[in-house]
């Protein structure tokens, strides 16, 4: 009889186990990603998707996400291409918000983030505002101060103002003889333009540099002869270039051709990527860029390996998607997201509130502070191009 009872109990437990496993297998936490997977900035979206999929795989291999009722749910990632177009970005997010996704990570471009955040409800819970009520946790669009547009928008992007303030001061301290800076700016791209005029130029002056001037070009330009000639004529000690890898390489090659002399090159955060090394590693040798990602910790190395497995690369921007996935895992577990068909909107609100309540989070190269406006203050290092890789030049935390 005792054996029978034990058998029945074991069978019941096994049945309960299979039921629990079945429930777990049925419960899915849908996380959507979106960004540019077409056009000039295609690589950004490709990398973000690879990193998101790698992070999801790791989370699922470790048992998934613990949901509000104690069961475990699998993370399911879907990714959409917005072509770096505002209209398409809005359409993609409406599509995501009409489905099962409880949160979205993206977009790539600031010119998509800005209108998109405008479409979201400005103040969470404001019944008079019919904006979209859907949490977005941006990994890439880096133009300053965008998250304050909506309380449903959050970002995990580096604070460039702080990074360049620190970098210019450091360069001045290390090289007191450097007196002047000359700028180059990719004028028609929201991020690069903002970073030169609102960040680099002012931060260089604050650090004691004299800004001799600037030259401008456009994202689709392929000829930089005139601009580089002006750059050469300025004879500045430091040349600071606020442009993305595509035109940065064009400018650097032209600078080499015209034999422009300078003592230090400084680049835009977004250019600390593989694209720059693939396009012009020789010409970029020595360029210093502040970045919030470098494979210097075990976690960062794991993220980089994971991205490579999914045919992408972890860099300043895409690595943030890894952090976002794990931050979201923590928020989902803490706020008791249910991930059921009838709790989608409630789950979205829980995630928004959870993200808004965060004061600090973990990060790949160190702890990240969160601000009231939904922005991040991330740790960063200075890297410089050496051959086919970015090497750490200085860690301001040390």
């Amino acid at each position, binding site marked *: 009889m005792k054996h029978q009872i034990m058998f029945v109990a074991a069978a019941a437990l096994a049945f309960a186990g299979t039921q629990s496993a079945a429930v777990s297998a049925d419960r899915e936490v849908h996380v959507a990603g979106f960004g540019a997977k077409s056009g000039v900035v295609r690589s950004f979206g490709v990398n973000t998707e690879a990193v998101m999929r790698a992070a999801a795989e790791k989370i699922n291999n470790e048992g998934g996400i613990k949901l509000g009722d104690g069961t475990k749910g699998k993370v399911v990632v879907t990714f*959409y291409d917005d072509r770096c177009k*505002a209209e*398409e970005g809005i*359409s993609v997010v409406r599509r995501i918000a009409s489905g099962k996704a409880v949160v979205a990570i993206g977009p790539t471009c600031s010119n998509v983030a800005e*209108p998109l955040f*405008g479409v979201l409800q400005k103040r969470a819970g404001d019944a008079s*505002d019919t904006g979209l009520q859907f949490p977005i946790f941006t990994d890439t669009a880096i133009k300053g101060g965008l998250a304050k547009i909506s309380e449903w928008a959050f970002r995990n992007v580096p604070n460039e103002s702080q990074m360049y303030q620190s970098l210019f001061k450091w360069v001045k301290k290390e090289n007191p003889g450097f007196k002047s800076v000359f700028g180059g700016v990719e004028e*028609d791209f929201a991020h690069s333009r903002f970073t030169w005029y609102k960040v680099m130029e002012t931060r260089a002056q604050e650090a004691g540099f004299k800004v001799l001037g600037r030259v401008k070009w456009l994202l689709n330009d392929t000829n930089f002869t005139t601009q580089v000639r002006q750059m050469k004529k300025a004879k500045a000690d430091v040349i600071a270039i606020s442009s993305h890898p595509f035109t940065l390489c064009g400018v650097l090659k032209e600078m080499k051709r015209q034999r422009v002399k300078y003592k230090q090159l400084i680049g835009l955060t977004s250019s600390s990527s593989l694209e720059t090394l693939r396009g012009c590693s020789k010409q970029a040798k020595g360029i210093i860029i502040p970045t919030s990602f470098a494979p210097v910790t075990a976690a960062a190395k794991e993220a980089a390996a994971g991205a490579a497995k999914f045919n992408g690369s972890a860099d300043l921007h895409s690595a943030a998607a890894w952090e976002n996935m794990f931050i979201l895992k923590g928020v989902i577990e803490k706020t008791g997201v249910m991930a059921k068909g009838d709790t989608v909107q409630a789950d979205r609100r829980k995630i928004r509130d959870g993200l808004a309540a965060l004061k600090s989070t973990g990060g790949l190269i160190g702890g990240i502070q969160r601000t009231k406006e939904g922005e991040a203050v991330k740790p960063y290092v200075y890297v410089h191009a050496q051959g086919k890789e970015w090497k750490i030049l200085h860690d301001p935390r040390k």
Partner: protein
Amino acid sequence: MDDFTWGMVQIVGVHTILGLSAYVILLTGQVSMAQAGFVAIGAYVAGMLTVLAEWHIIPAMVTGGLAASVLACIVGFPALRIRGLMLVVATIAFGEFVRLFWFNFDYRIAKGDIVVGPEGGEGFKQIRFFPENGWTTQDVAVFVWVVAAIILATLWWMDRSRAGKVLRAVGEDEMAAQSVGINLTVVKVAAFTAGGFIAGIAGAIYAHYTTHIEHLNFDILMATFAIAYPILGGLANVWGTLFAAFFIQVIVIEVLRDLGDVRNLMFGALIILVMNFLPHGLFSAKVVRKLKEWMGIGKMSDA
């Protein structure tokens, strides 16, 4: 219908209006690549009126359209002296001029604790008339289509009136039209003005449903889309433009989203194929006549 579908309804509506702005001008045989410039004028003017002056969307939209039509009228006069390829080049130059004007235009004022208004290359943000006034995505979609329906109906009626015949006569053969007493100056300038007004209306709505505009939104690609719709759909009537806007925005851009860059190739290939094999567009007069016969509506009188 969910929010996404209503969003698509909005997009198709705005692009239909954009296509119709080029349709009117194409009827007179002129190819205008300036439509993106007119859209930009409507977008910025209407945006400034709702955000800075706190106007309602309807007067702001009409004013945006009127501002664009004034500029279009001015552009229409030099367009009388040139035609064909030179007109295309001149209108591209105008579009770029307008885009760069907004690129350098900075006019912001403090409104509460924030500063709002166009900020040159940074763009013009917080154009939030719709959400701030309780308009849902569905409300906006209905509004867009009421405006689109008014424009469609007006052009459809015009096509059947003497005005439409005059526009088409100029488009078919300027010399012949002039020889029967049609004033080419009035017709061409009127077509440009009407096209500019419609484009300005499209711009006003565009600015308010995207909530943020910047000069790059109004580039050569938008101008290409504007003329692609009536070219693909055909100039036999207004429905071709509506069909082409639906086909490009819903099928090519949204349904085939996962194809990435291939969509751009498809768009180009589609235009080449249509121009080669269906030079009068998908809805040519012949196709429309056959469709009508098949539907039992009777022979088309004016196609």
